């Protein structure tokens, strides 16, 4: 069982590597970094000047064939789904693929001074959150849980990087099920 992480127009190598370490620590699953550029210009909406995250997910799915593995795309591009003005990320609920963007997590976008530490924290939380969805986790009512829904950047700062007890239990159960399937295969 692995988590593949693919940078998609994400030049900050340090931030990317830190994120990968955090994901490995959090999920206790080996993280494998991929390096396979996707034709992102194809999914750019010229009017909105944003990138369709649902399409990115469909492309990410082609990158992994193993049943029990997950794949996370990490980008600094502004993501959207057609009905919403923007998204921080998107994931397949109980699926394999997730994508997260740092674009709207940057304080400078909101006229505030640049804060690399906040960006790192927010990106880690959102990446864990989106991968959490792939393990069947839905939004959690516990405001400290990483699965708590956040629709604006400052809201992400209120929650922790950790799963609450009930989300953690579901995650462990799902990981166990995946491992069993893997062993059977």
């Amino acid at each position, binding site marked *: 069982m692995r988590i593949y992480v693919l940078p998609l127009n994400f030049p900050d190598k340090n931030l990317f590597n830190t994120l990968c370490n955090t994901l490995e620590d959090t999920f206790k699953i080996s993280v494998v970094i991929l390096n396979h550029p996707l034709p992102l210009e194809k999914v750019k909406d010229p009017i909105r000047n944003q990138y369709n995250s*649902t399409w990115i997910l469909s492309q990410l799915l082609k990158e992994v064939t193993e049943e029990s593995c997950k794949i996370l795309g990490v980008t600094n591009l502004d993501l959207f*789904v*057609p*009905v919403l003005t923007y998204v921080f990320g998107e994931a397949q*609920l109980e699926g394999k693929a997730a994508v997260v963007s740092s674009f709207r997590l940057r304080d400078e976008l909101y006229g505030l001074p640049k804060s690399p530490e906040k960006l790192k924290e927010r990106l880690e939380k959102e990446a864990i959150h989106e991968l959490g969805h792939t393990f069947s986790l*839905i939004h959690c009512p516990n405001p400290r849980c990483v699965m708590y*829904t956040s629709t604006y950047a400052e809201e992400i700062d209120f929650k922790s990087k950790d799963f609450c007890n009930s989300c953690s239990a579901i995650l462990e159960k799902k990981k166990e099920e995946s491992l069993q399937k893997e062993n059977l295969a």
Partner: protein
Amino acid sequence: MNLKEKDKSVSILVVDDEFSVRDSLTKWFKSDGYLAESAADANEALKKLQEKHWDIAFLDIKMPGIDGMELQQRIKGIDPNIVIIILTGYASIDTAVKSLKEGAYDYVTKPVDPDYLSHLIEKVVQQRLVLSENIQLKETIQELYITDQIIGESPGILKVFELMKAVAPADTSVFIRGESGTGKELLARTIHAKSSRRFFPFINLNCGGLSEDLLESELFGHEKGAMAGALYRRKGKLEMADGGTLFLNEVANLSPKAQTVLNTAIETKQFNRVGGQEVIKVDFRLISATSQNLDLLVKEGVFREDLYYQLNVFTISIPSLRERGKDLILLANYFLNNLVKAMNKPIEGFSPEALTFLEKYDWPGNVRELKNAIERAVVVSQGPFITISDLPIPAVSKTSIKALSLEAVEKNHLLQVLEQMGWDLDKSAEVLKIDRAILESKIEKYGLRK
């Protein structure tokens, strides 16, 4: 249980001809824990609406075939409680405003700000939660009002049900006739609980046990110093029943003065407290009852004819238990089951002999007497069946009617008349055509008590 935990049961239907819109919205709601599905057009949506209940529907305005506006009207015809949120582009805001006038909860322009959408759904869910809690509370209040049920299948009681069902929603005054213990108060409470006044008070006044002055004070209230001991202003039952129902039990016992004032109060819906000048306006429904022959009392001039007609707009006569045939066994089993549960006793039912005894007895105290007899039997019974010896003695002694002595017959008859007359010794003596002093000596002789 917090709000979010209750969210899980909220179902959302997204209707949009554009796949990417309905797909992304459905996924968004699913990741939030809602039950979400989508429909590509109005026909598919209507089919889904027939199949199951939906709490919220997102409708795209511009769709081929039936558009969002028409679909909104059709949905309201299927389920007026569905919260409808219109999805629209900037070009059709006028239509969206029109949809709001048609009863849509809100409209959102595509693309939607996720923060706005998140708060909108939260607001709808919270509103629905409050609404459902409100309905639950109202049902609880209704259950509290009807603490017991009227049980029966006999033609007589079915007629009572039919009349009750017809009169309950109307605001008509109801007059209930029936022997003591037939369930007149229970019927009055049920009528109140099934009326539009059910969330207002049900005020019960038994006119039988109060002196003339006390009865007036109870009915109309009094001002401070209106009488000896009236240290404070006090609201009467009429005032307390404002918005609700006033139930006057044993109304035949109202004094002539109280009858006059009550007659005016019913007619004008206003009155003065005893010793007061202030005109109190009230809105109440009147239900009255008596176990006496009110027609006879009117003929004899004891009861005001005009008040009689005010009370007797719609009459329901409850049959005595003797007239209710197999209802007796139905009621006996109903009371037994309830009491066994409440007292946690290992009792399975009645022995065949006990059932025969119950059927043979006359039950002059009607359902009340039956209930008390069974309660007593459940208390003393060791189980698993209620036997004859568990039943109270008066009930058992009545079973062998043929063997009764003349004295026993006299005692039973005296008791029956006294109960029918509400233990009014003068009236009872009059009915029995004996002197009051003789009646008193017989009461003493047989040890009769209320």
